[in-house]
């Protein structure tokens, strides 16, 4: 049996007295697509930070591709094939789309150290960038400065930058947050068209959007895993309904 793409063993992240992530264990098989859903503040983004290395867990173990990565730096994990997008757009606003893509493309290679050459790509690199921009439906925007892009385009660029790195494990933190229904459909189509051998974790508030895109669903609540099940079972699950609907409706309103 091949090693799991990602395995979390009792991972906790504490901020002072708050356990933002509280003893989360999960296994993501190679090529699996997983949604992590749950109300605002459930700890989803913090869990991503623990997986990508932006935060070190207070307890527990993180394994990526069968190798321990609990203490590895973010850049080391990126080089091991972990790609991510950010819930709050985190791009290089003063640079152009093409420059953002070059930074993403070179993140895992050696070319970022070349100080004696012009800042251009070889044919291979140009092709990779064009392909990633095309899968994110961002063709023809190379010369635009990122700060001049629409919000929707910035979300698409986030995806393109993650894709051009050819990650083995892709973490998408609410890629459709704040988008119009049409744009959300576009993001869903982009996610659906991702290569099948790519392992992916998708954080998404919108259950309807998330359930159509994944093989399995993990529901988080107050830092813990509430339920892990196939999409078809999630909607009918009483505990999930309670988290999403039962308890004060404000929770749901805040989540959407």
């Amino acid at each position, binding site marked *: 049996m091949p090693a799991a793409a990602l395995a979390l063993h009792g991972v906790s992240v504490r901020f002072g007295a708050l356990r933002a992530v509280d003893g989360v264990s999960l296994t993501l098989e190679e090529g699996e697509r997983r949604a992590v859903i749950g109300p605002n503040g459930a700890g989803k983004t913090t869990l991503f930070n623990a997986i*990508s*290395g*932006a935060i070190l867990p207070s307890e527990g173990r993180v394994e990526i591709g069968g190798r321990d990565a609990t203490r590895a*730096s*973010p*850049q080391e994990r*990126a*080089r091991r094939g972990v790609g*991510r997008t*950010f819930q709050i757009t*985190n*791009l*290089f*606003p*003063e*640079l*152009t789309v093409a*420059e953002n893509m*070059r*930074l*993403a493309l*070179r*993140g*895992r290679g050696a*070319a*970022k*150290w*070349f*100080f*004696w*050459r*012009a*800042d251009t790509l070889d044919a291979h690199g140009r092709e990779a960038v064009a392909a990633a921009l095309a899968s994110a439906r961002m063709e023809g925007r190379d010369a635009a*400065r990122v700060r001049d892009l629409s919000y929707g385009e910035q979300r698409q660029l986030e995806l393109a*930058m993650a894709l051009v*790195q050819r990650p083995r494990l892709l973490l998408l933190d609410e890629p459709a947050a704040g988008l119009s229904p049409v744009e959300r459909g576009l993001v869903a189509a982009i996610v659906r068209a991702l290569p099948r051998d790519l392992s992916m974790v998708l954080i998404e508030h919108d259950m309807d959007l998330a359930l159509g895109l994944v093989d399995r669903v993990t529901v988080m609540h107050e830092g813990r895993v509430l339920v892990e099940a196939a999409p078809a079972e999630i909607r009918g699950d009483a505990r999930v309904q309670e988290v999403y609907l039962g308890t004060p409706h404000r929770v749901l309103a805040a989540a959407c």
Partner: protein
Amino acid sequence: MTAAASAAAGVLALALLPFALSAFHVGVATEILIFALLAMSIDVLAGFAGRTPLCHGAIFGTSTYVVILSAHAIPLPLAMLAGIGAAGLLALLFGVIAVRTSGVYFLLLTLALGLIVWGVCLRWTAVTGGENGVRGDLRQGWLADARALYWLVLAAGTVLAAAMWRLVRSPFGLTLRGIKDSPTRMQALGHDVARHLLLAFVASGLFAGAAGALYALYNDFVSPTTVALPQSVEGLLMAIAGGVGTLFGALAGAALLIGLELFVSAWTERWPTVLGLTAILLMIVAPEGLVGKAGAIMGSRRSTGGIR
């Protein structure tokens, strides 16, 4: 290749300048070139990596000290290499300490490191001569001629400026600009932010050291003033006056400040006051610097290409 053509025209114009100037003013022009190099080395960090250093005067002056002191024992070209090497080592040490900080912490940390160098040069009298400084014996033979020295500095400066241009316009330079915009995103993409900044710091220190070695030839004397804080501040102000992130704007900044100092000192002793007022005036009328302002007026984005 219009950029290369205009650069060549600029260098040619600078090369012809001594024929129009007195020997004294050729000296001033030499000083402007040297300080433009210092300001450019500062701009590599301030304009492209988003880290504003206040220790480059100390790195520059350390090279000057090493050149003047070692030239008593070894041939001048070797002494200059030793000066540049010392500057690189000092920058490596400073960089190791400073690159994990940013913003005002970086500014203050590099300021403190620079002050230590100044303190050492002031107190280590046996070697540095303390407050009295050390006189060199470098301007021998053809170097005694002001115009010859100017051309030497111009030739070396052209090579150094081209190297800095290559650096900031390379994949390495783009990585620096990415770090300036968002270090966390750079890490998530696999970039080694601290190591990158360290290399940039050392490169910038080597360029400042090269400027300091040329200053040893020009001044033939070094004292703690050369490594003192005002030196770092003036270098930074020149970079800002020219336009942070424009690299070559440093030349305009150096010409403005050194020219102004020369002009003002004819009728007042209060150069620091005038410098301060000039800096304030610049912040108001041209916060993007002379070259940045000129670029904006001409509606071109090229001049500010460094930060875009």
